[in-house]
């Protein structure tokens, strides 16, 4: 069944009211942007996530977390998306936590993550596009550990993170899944230069330059040369999660726009009376509902360990990316001039959508992956 359980509905309601009260654009996104916060999010709110148990949403119960699945994460992320709430929830609690699952590094970092004291980041991309197999950062054995050299970009919250999971190559060559290893590198590691970059939506993502960064053998997350396993867990969770966040974002933008159509008067009537806008709004509604169903389905399949989960996760991220792009583009256009102002929130949705679409691969990348899996 694709319907939510009672427990899931309760969690969704809780996330809805929590983020509508505490995670609003005014209190969070605009506040941290306008005060020039270097993290781009509030640690106070992250503590509140912890008080509600949400920091440990994906962390096993025996490690202090809630031990919940991709579906529950998706429900929270929908509300995060709707409110454009900046927080480490997606990358730390949903994606990175999955990579750390069942590893010694997980045992080390989970208590801090659950407590809302630790921010963790994921360093995968090396070029301007998401191509996880193309990782070329080199990890060379030296003494009892490894030295890492290379560069990374689009590392969300990299400069605020306590630990960064860095994908590097211990074998194979760029383009191969084998031979990758995931290392837990502390942010202040010697030889790692961290440039804190502000993105269009006022969120922060770092560029890393690793110059012979020395790590111990126990920094390895999972197995040497077997980094694809934890990495693909994190990417699947991140993609399904960002798809859900995009759906929430799209809904938020569409609702704001529908409200505007019912309030704005021109030519002596409400602009929502014009059929040309009605049909576009109805088409948008349809696209968002379909994206939501795809996002829920991907999460459901991931939670069941179903073999179709990989394909559906690509579908969900692609569909959510496109639907959210339509939502923000129609949103700004239908708002007219006011939609171009910084004062109005609709433009913030457009900027966040661009960032979330690129995160863990944009919709074209995922459509391409669907074709690749299908063999054409």
């Amino acid at each position, binding site marked *: 069944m694709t319907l939510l359980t009672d427990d899931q509905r309760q969690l969704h309601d809780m996330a809805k009211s929590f983020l509508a009260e505490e995670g609003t654009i005014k209190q969070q996104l605009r506040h941290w942007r306008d005060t020039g916060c270097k993290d781009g999010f509030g640690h106070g709110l992250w503590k509140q996530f912890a008080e509600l148990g949400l920091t440990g949403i994906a962390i096993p119960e025996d490690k202090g977390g809630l031990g919940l699945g991709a579906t529950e994460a998706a429900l929270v992320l929908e509300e995060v998306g709707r409110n454009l709430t900046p927080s480490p929830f997606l990358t730390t609690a949903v994606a990175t936590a999955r990579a750390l699952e069942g590893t010694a590094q997980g045992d080390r970092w989970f208590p801090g993550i659950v407590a809302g004291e630790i921010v963790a980041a994921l360093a995968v991309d090396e070029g301007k596009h998401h191509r996880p197999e193309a990782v070329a950062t080199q990890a060379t054995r030296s003494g009892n550990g490894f030295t890492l050299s290379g560069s990374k970009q689009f590392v969300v919250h990299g400069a605020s993170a306590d630990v960064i999971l860095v994908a590097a190559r211990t074998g194979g060559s760029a383009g191969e899944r084998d031979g990758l290893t995931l290392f837990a590198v502390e942010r202040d590691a010697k030889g790692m230069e961290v440039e804190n970059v502000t993105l269009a939506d006022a969120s922060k993502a770092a560029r890393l330059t690793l110059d012979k960064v020395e790590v111990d053998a126990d920094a390895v997350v999972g197995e040497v040369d077997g980094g694809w396993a934890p990495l693909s867990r994190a990417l699947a969770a991140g993609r399904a999660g960002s798809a859900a966040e995009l759906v929430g974002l799209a809904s938020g933008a569409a609702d704001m726009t529908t409200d505007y159509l019912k309030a704005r008067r021109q030519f002596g*009537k409400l602009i929502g009376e014009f059929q040309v806008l009605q049909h576009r709004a*109805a088409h948008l509604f349809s696209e968002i509902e379909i994206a939501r169903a*795809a996002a*829920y389905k991907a999460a459901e399949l991931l939670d069941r360990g179903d073999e179709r989960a990989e*394909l559906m996760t*690509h579908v969900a991220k692609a569909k959510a990316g496109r639907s959210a792009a339509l939502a923000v583009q129609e949103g700004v256009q239908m708002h007219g001039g006011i939609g171009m102002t910084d004062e109005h929130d609709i433009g913030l949705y457009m900027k966040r959508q661009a960032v979330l679409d690129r995160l863990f691969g944009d919709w074209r990348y995922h459509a391409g992956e669907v074709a690749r899996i299908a063999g054409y």
Partner: protein
Amino acid sequence: MAELDQFRSETRAWLDANCPAEMRQPVKSEDDVCWGGRNFQFQSDAQKRWLQVMAERGWTTPDWPREVGGGGLSPAEAKILKEEMRAIGARNPLNSFGISMLGPALLKYGTDEQKQRFLPPIVRGEIRWCQGYSEPGAGSDLAGLQAKAEDMGDHYLVNGQKVWTSYADQADWIFCLVRTSTETKHGGISFLLFDMESEGVSTKPILLISGYSPFCETFMDDVKVPKDQVVGEVNKGWDVAKYLLGHEREMISGMGLGGGSSLLGKIVGEIEDPALRAEVAAFDVDALAFAAMSERFIDQLKAGEAHPAMPSMMKYAGTELNKRRHELVMAAGGSDTLEWESERTRKGKPAREWLRTKANSIEGGTSEIQLGIIAKHILRLPGA
């Protein structure tokens, strides 16, 4: 959960024992589809037997009540049956507007007597129904219909013309909207059932751009209809009509699933053009997402959680998707798929099907009508 698991294994075993091998082969042409009815010619013994064994269990209508011959299955059980049938590639034993359209309306609005009289023959595929809705002057503006039924005391006298009556030339009975009052537009419509063999009924197929004639014009000239064949109250047929339309739209939206076939990129042959490959990939994303939506919609519907206007959304999205599917099939096929009569193309199947899909977003209410319904009833936009 254990009960459902047991139901699944029993269903699997029963299907394995009872679904003929031939009925597990994909439908090759329209002739392989079983529509039932008085005049239906079964293509094979297997087709006939498959209908018979499924109808005996009520599984041609799995979720209808047992009292009318249905399967009496819960939504979860009906879903399992569907999944298990799909798993072995079992054909639909019976395609029927009686099942997908009239039945749900009769279950909601029919009298006990009407249910007992009309539903069991639908379950068994004995009576084939057609739909008399549109008229030459009443298409998108359906409630503007003019075919009239005059009260003659013990019966109605029906006169007028219907158009786009699907398969009227092969149907046994018709469910038909007629005007019983001219006082108000929506409030003067009644929902009538009558036998197509009644005196005064005639049909004429309409040749379409596809070269097929799935639709007819239907003429009614002094047709006598007994009064117990009105469904719902007289002059309140619009409620029945709208309810039935919801089910029709649900059925048509299924076209977006492309017959449950695999990804488009897998079936159109080699794609050399990168621009086409990208388009096909974007289509497959939309098709798989729509399949997820379809599953979710049906679950919500059965749980009573679907918004009443959601069939419009599904119909809109599903039919637009199906049109796109066939545009891409034609693009991938190049000049091969332009052939109209050759045996190579099974008499122009790709081109004819492509043209047939253009009706998807017109029949059962155009895409524009569906968008209007979404705008009004879901988004609650003003003046819609």
